């Protein structure tokens, strides 16, 4: 299991109800079903990925996350609403975060950290928009329209009244190393947060 998935799996109580936003081919949902006996749904915009979820036996709703969760789900209908590596592609990340803690008891979010030292180096020394393994797109064709740093994200949580219950940092090998806890904004390539509403 990928380390970010393992972190998420550790946070999730057995037998809980889970919603995965931008679930892709439902790999994470299948892992959680096997390791934590979860139930729930995925949301996915791509019909090709949806067909993969169907093959794997995971219920999935084809929907555009930019239209929010309220068309589909009632308040507090899930234990966890998860969104991995998708926040930065959303038109209104701040609204979606609010919807996540509205529809779920807790929200779990992962995103690429723009403050990662390699990104900073490319920008500061090269004077170019960073292109890395985690962020492989050119500035003109990237789906990632709302990139942020660990500090930006925590400032948003503060402003939005979102409580940070837990956070973990991982590098490009998706390993979690002790040093990252000291300087997460510089050393983490991917950040993993567990949040709750007010």
């Amino acid at each position, binding site marked *: 299991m990928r380390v970010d998935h393992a972190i998420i799996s550790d946070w999730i109580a057995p037998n809980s109800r889970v919603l995965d936003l931008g679930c892709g081919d439902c790999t994470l949902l299948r892992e959680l079903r096997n390791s934590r006996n979860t139930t729930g749904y995925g949301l996915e915009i791509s*019909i*090709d990925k949806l067909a993969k979820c169907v093959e794997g036996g995971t219920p999935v709703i084809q929907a555009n996350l930019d239209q929010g969760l309220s068309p589909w*789900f009632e308040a507090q209908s899930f234990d966890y609403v998860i969104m991995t590596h998708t926040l930065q592609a959303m038109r209104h990340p701040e609204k979606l975060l609010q919807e996540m803690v509205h529809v779920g008891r807790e929200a779990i979010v992962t995103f690429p950290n723009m403050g990662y030292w390699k990104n900073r180096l490319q920008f500061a020394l090269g004077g170019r928009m960073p292109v890395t393994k985690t962020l492989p797109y050119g500035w003109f064709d990237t789906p990632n329209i709302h990139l942020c740093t660990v500090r930006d994200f925590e400032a948003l949580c503060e402003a939005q009244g979102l409580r940070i219950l837990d956070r973990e940092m991982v590098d490009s090998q998706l390993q979690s190393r002790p040093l990252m806890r000291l300087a997460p904004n510089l050393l983490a390539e991917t950040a993993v947060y567990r949040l709750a509403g007010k």
Partner: protein
Amino acid sequence: MPAVLPPDSVGLVIPETLSFDEPLELDSGKTLPRYDLIVETYGELNAARSNAILICHALSGDHHAAGYHSMDDRKPGWWDSAIGPGKPIDTTRFFVVCLNNLGGCKGSTGPTSINPDNGRVFGADFPMVTVNDWVRSQERLMRRLGIAQWAAVVGGSLGGMQVMQWAISFPKALRHALVIAAAPKLSAQNIAFNEVARQSIFADPGFHDGHYLEHNTLPRKGLMLARMLGHITYLSDDAMRAKFGRELRAGKINFGFDVEFQVESYLRYQGASFVDRFDANTYLLMTKALDYFDPAGAFEHQLSRAFAATEAEFLVTSFTTDWRFSPARSHEIVKALLQAGKRVTYAEIESEHGHDAFLVPIPDYMNVFRAYMGRVSSEDATCA
């Protein structure tokens, strides 16, 4: 006419008529003392009798869903695109059952049948039938075939409404419910189109209050108009533009009321050929069954409560340019199922074909359909 049968066809098929003597009490309060259902089946029922699929037809459909009746047939059954060896409803894995619903005109008891009470053709005397009545008759058919539970019940449009009714009325009798291009109830606009269709039939001087067969005539113009109107609602604006544009049949305007634009030619052809194969009283009954369908009605108009006792897993599918039963109508179904905490998958297929899309083998649609039915089949293999 196929010179040879395609390898992914179910081939030549022979319908079978089953008679039922147990009276069927209808929602209208009337009773059908006995009735026939005409049925086609494809594939083999397995030893565990667990691989049966019921196909529910839409407004103008019938029991002939796939294959050919003879080598002279111009076209295969109405859902041949989805039923056959290697197709989403794979007849090498499933035993597929399709019937003509009560009130139909293709061999099941309906307005063109003889009324046993007086020896005359039923005509307008055939009682109104509802989606619920159909599903109850289908449940009797299921028992007659020795099937305790369908692996899946599948239908598009009005067929999709029967699928929902199955899941609500007989929760244990199906494992999967595939609801395609459907709606939880008709909108005022939907009912309005149906009413115009009915009025055009009533207005035909050949209608004779529905007893036209006794007068050896048909309300040809009225039924033709009804069908032309229907076809407009089945296609999208884009599909019509792509198919016909403003193309002229003769290449120039003739300042007359004969067919000039290609779209006029299409509608007249569709209308006229429909009259030759369909009964006006059946059309009236089917449109009323559509209008009346509202499973939430018995549950304080909360669809999620109507679904509360269902046990089937759902696949709900809609098509982007379908404006008769738009994706928003499927959203209502999906949202109610989510509220009820049911297992549901929803696919919204990009298509330019309007409501007709559910009969078109669109690759994305077929992929999801095939993937879902593959799972239905593999689950069956593990529990059998």
